[in-house]
């Protein structure tokens, strides 16, 4: 091996540890992602196979066909196929989704008829025979911890929970829940709770069951024979075409189509079609993961480049000596690259193992916590070769620049007196112009992309702009740290209090490279996290505003025929009322064109404080001369005649049916009473859809008019945004961990550089605590600078990201900064910096004053 590389690795040892850890984390992320995607697609294949288990041919609805249309794969069609030559059996299966309980736990259930031909072996118990029996898949039984003898409850569809206004007719024939006893468990996995019933059991369901497919099993030898399957497939298609009077069309893996509704597929075709669908999904998943993997790798590359930069700086003298005694530039470069290669290889191997373990853990967690049973994670060639290869390549690539720098050390550098380095080189022209170009171009593209709602320029611009900031960091980060230090030091040159910050400020000027590197590591982390946080908050605020625009009222409760006391008891008991106002109403006849309809007229005062508290936007209330009219109240016309006045009609989807809202100026002469009025209610922003559903259902027992569409919408997307944010932050975790390793890394690397400085400070009388404090203060000041820059960049990127995703017309985007979360990011960043500085601070404060005098 290259003698220089060996020696370098020996001396690099501890300093390379953090860089190796960064490689490992990044590679682990990539490997885990690849393994998870693999496990995911295998799971899908197994599930697809299980779906067809045992059937030779399946007649089902085409994608996009109408399940309520005609023809559907029902019993009648199955009868016609039954007598086909070669067909042993043709069974029509029905399918239903319902909410219910498994062993007392709420669950979303998929219920279907048990295919008589199913090859899925029984794990325990027996197949269902009676109408009240059911079998579960093994996964379902395990996840919910139930077995034969336990009870399944299937709830009737609850209109209140689905957010639909309760219509009185459906309320009356509520069939109530159906109960089944688990008779056995069959093998199989599925992403949701799955139960199979007998045909009679299906008939008992309190929810509608749709014809799903006809499963055909072939006679004797032909069963399982692909050639026979294809042959019979054509016969079956012909029979179906004749029965329904429609054309036959070949549809590739989609099988043979009959008209627009039906298709016949072989088992094989079904699995393939499903896999084709899923490859699309898996590709999206892989793409998202790859993007985050790239971020993690990029951050790791920065850490590595930093490490090697510092190594080159600390080895300048040695490099010069090597040059002096005849080492060629090429030799120094290849030694450095070899060092990177070894580091990359070791880090990648560790990372691959780490990633494998993480994937195993995730696979287990998916089953346990999200009840999503995945095929066991298995090492794949791609994960264990591609992941580490990318890691090694990335590491070596990150070494290129430092390696080049190593070769520019002149032999004369060995002969200069120690530590009397000439002023650091200025930022080179190349770097300056590249940086300015990247920054200006990148940010311009980001802003434009945000304004024109185009994702590609916004995202690409953000990456380029941020790179530009990193490239230019040397220009403005050290002065910022210096300014902060001086600010903290306050006036008075020699004040005791100001001594430490003043030293920090001087250091920032003396070692701009190190200051920039440390700050950059943190800057990356802060920018990533604040982009996501601010982006999510902006999305939420934008949707919120849009919702307030369209639906300015949360809930309107009508009193017609209801007991006001009951209604307010329900409302008060729910704890979901932040403000309410009782608006007296007038029962009137409204005329529009030829029709005359009874309506409830309300006339809230737009300026009233109560109205403002309840409504999310009082500007929604009408001006004089205009009437807000609930949809489907008037048949036609853009004018309405009410109590002798003619008013312009403005449709308002947020009003309960039969309601007209007037400006008080137009309401003179109408007789208002509370009995005919409505209670307008505002609910908390974070009200969950469950509790809202309960409230609307309870209110529905007392009164007929309830509108809570806005609140339900709000309730439905708020957790979604939170979940997405959580997932994204978890994915970002890898990148952030690497960034934190990065700060710790540069800080500890600085220990090697700073031993002499620390010893000198100690020699001239600085206390141990002082030296340690210096390091920590420096780290904290750098963190403050990283926070300021990172939050600014994050605000821009977050806004641009959301704005580029949303369509302008649909949702105008507002920038929202969630100050509580920003404060958390701040605390985390300062904490991480302080924490990362602890070890180096301790190490340096222990430097003996004599250490500064020894050579190397």
């Amino acid at each position, binding site marked *: 091996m290259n003698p220089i590389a060996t020696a370098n690795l020996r001396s690099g040892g501890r300093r390379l540890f953090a860089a190796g850890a960064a490689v490992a984390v990044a590679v682990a992320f990539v490997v885990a992602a690849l393994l998870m995607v693999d496990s995911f697609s295998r799971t899908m294949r197994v599930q697809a196979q299980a779906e067809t288990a045992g059937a030779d041919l399946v007649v089902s609805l085409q994608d996009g066909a109408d399940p309520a249309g005609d023809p559907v794969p029902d019993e009648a069609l199955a009868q016609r196929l039954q007598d086909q030559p070669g067909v042993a059996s043709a069974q029509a299966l029905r399918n239903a989704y319902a909410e219910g309980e498994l062993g007392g736990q709420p669950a979303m259930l998929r219920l279907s008829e048990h295919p008589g031909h199913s090859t899925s072996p029984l794990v325990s118990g027996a197949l269902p025979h009676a109408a009240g029996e059911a079998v579960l898949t093994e996964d379902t039984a395990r996840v919910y911890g139930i077995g034969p003898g336990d009870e399944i409850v299937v709830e009737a569809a609850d209109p209140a929970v689905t957010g639909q206004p309760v219509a009185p007719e459906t309320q009356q024939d509520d069939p109530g829940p159906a109960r089944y006893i688990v008779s056995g468990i069959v093998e199989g996995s599925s992403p949701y709770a799955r139960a199979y019933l007998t045909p009679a059991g299906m008939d008992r369901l309190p929810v509608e069951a749709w014809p799903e497919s006809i499963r055909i099993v072939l006679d004797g030898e032909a069963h399982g024979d692909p050639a026979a399957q294809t042959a019979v497939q054509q016969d079956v298609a012909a029979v179906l075409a004749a029965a329904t009077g429609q054309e036959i069309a070949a549809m590739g893996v989609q099988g043979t189509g009959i008209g627009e509704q039906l298709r016949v597929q072989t088992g094989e075709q079904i699995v393939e079609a499903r896999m084709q669908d899923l490859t699309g999904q898996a590709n999206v998943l892989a793409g998202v993961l790859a993007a985050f993997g790239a971020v993690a790798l990029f951050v790791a590359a920065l850490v590595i480049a930093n490490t090697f930069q510092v190594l080159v700086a600390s080895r300048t003298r040695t490099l010069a000596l090597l040059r002096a*005694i*005849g080492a060629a530039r090429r030799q120094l470069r290849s030694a450095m690259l070899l060092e990177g290669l070894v580091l990359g290889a070791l880090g990648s191997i560790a990372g691959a193992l780490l990633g494998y373990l993480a994937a195993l853990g995730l696979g287990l967690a998916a089953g346990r916590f999200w009840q999503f049973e995945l095929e066991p994670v298995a090492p794949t060639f791609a994960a264990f070769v591609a992941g580490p290869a990318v890691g090694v390549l990335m590491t070596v690539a990150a070494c290129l620049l430092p390696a080049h720098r190593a070769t520019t050390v002149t032999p004369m550098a060995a002969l200069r007196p120690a530590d009397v380095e000439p002023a650091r080189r200025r930022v080179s022209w190349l770097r300056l112009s590249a940086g300015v170009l990247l920054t200006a171009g990148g940010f311009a593209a980001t802003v434009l992309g945000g304004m024109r709602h185009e994702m590609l320029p916004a995202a690409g611009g953000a990456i380029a702009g941020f790179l530009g900031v990193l490239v230019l960091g040397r220009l403005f980060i050290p002065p910022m740290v210096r300014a902060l230090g001086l600010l903290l030091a306050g006036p008075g040159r020699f004040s005791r209090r100001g001594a430490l910050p003043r030293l920090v400020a001087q250091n920032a000027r003396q070692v701009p490279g190190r200051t920039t590197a440390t700050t950059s590591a943190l800057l990356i982390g802060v920018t990533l996290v604040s982009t996501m946080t601010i982006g999510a908050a902006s999305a939420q605020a934008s949707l919120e505003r849009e919702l307030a625009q369209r639906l300015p009222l949360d809930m309107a409760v009508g009193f017609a025929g209801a007991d006001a006391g009951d209604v307010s008891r329900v409302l008060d008991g729910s704890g979901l009322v932040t403000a309410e106002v009782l608006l007296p109403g007038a029962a009137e006849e409204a005329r529009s064109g030829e029709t005359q309809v009874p309506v409830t007229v309300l006339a809230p005062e737009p300026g009233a404080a109560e109205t403002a508290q309840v409504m999310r936007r009082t500007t929604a209330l009408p001006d004089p001369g205009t009437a807000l009219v609930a949809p489907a109240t008037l048949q036609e016309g853009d004018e309405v005649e009410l109590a002798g006045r003619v008013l312009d009609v403005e449709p308002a989807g947020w009003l309960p049916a039969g309601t007209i809202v007037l400006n008080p100026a137009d309401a003179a002469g109408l007789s208002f009473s509370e009995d005919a009025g409505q209670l307008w209610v505002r609910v908390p922003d974070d009200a969950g859809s469950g509790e809202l559903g309960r409230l609307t259902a309870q209110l529905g027992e007392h009164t007929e008019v309830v509108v809570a569409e806005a609140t339900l919408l709000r309730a439905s997307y708020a957790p979604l945004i939170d979940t997405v944010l959580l997932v994204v932050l978890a994915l970002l975790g890898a990148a952030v961990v690497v960034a934190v390793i990065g700060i710790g890394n540069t800080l500890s690397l600085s220990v090697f550089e700073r031993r002499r400085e620390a010893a000198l400070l100690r020699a001239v009388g600085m206390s141990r605590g002082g030296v340690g404090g210096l390091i920590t203060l420096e780290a904290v000041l750098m963190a403050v600078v990283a926070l300021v820059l990172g939050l600014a960049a994050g605000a821009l990127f977050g806004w641009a990201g959301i704005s580029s995703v949303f369509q302008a017309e649909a949702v105008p985007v507002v920038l929202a900064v969630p100050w509580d979360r920003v404060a958390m990011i701040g605390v985390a960043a300062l904490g991480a910096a302080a924490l990362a500085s602890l070890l180096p601070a301790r190490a340096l404060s222990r430097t003996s004053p004599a250490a500064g005098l020894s050579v190397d």
Partner: protein
Amino acid sequence: MTTTTTGSRALTAPAVRAVALEKSYGDGDAAVRPLRGLSIDFDAGRFTAVMGPSGSGKSTLMHVLAGLDAPDAGQAFIGRREITGLPEKQLTRIRRDHIGFIFQAYNLVPSMTAEENILLPGRLGGARADRGLFREITGRLGLSARLGHRPFELSGGQQQRVAVARALVSRPDVIFADEPTGNLDQATGAEVLGLLRAAVDEYDQTVIMVTHDVQAASLADRAVLLADGALAGDLQAPDAGRLAAAMLEVTR
């Protein structure tokens, strides 16, 4: 590591030659000119001492002659080969194959053991070291027991001896030594000087050594004196007395 035979170091051709070397730092009033048209020949197979007041340009001359630094004008030769204006690659090869160095300090690669440091030039050149010569030289320098140690585990004198061993083992044509004994006590200094002497006498190498010490210089075959970047004296077979007098002259 040279294969050059003694014969090629013909007395007729100097081992090292400087012709009208010019070097200056800075401009205008602040300008320093460490070399002012300096021309000098160093004979092969001889031990030459370079003396002169501080700042007279001794180190600068050594750097230029050894191809570590480029002069502003003039030429430098190693053997018959002109090294001024050579591309970096060839210069590196000449340094590796034909030149040895001993500096005042920072002689060794800190992460390598004494043995690795000594064998480094040969390994950089891809040549197999002469184990016999290695054992002989390290033995004579009293390093045999310390070969596995890293520089920070060695005393200043031991480090200096390792540097000397490195310069000897690869058997370069010319050894440049810039104040090699400045850091050392009397006894160790004498030992290092003895080895340089031996390099000339026994291995027929050329040694050019900068020193402030007239005792050290008196071991040389010849002493040249520099003052203000120009030659100010040239003594053959100098003794301490004459050197001291000459130095006094130059300094005045």
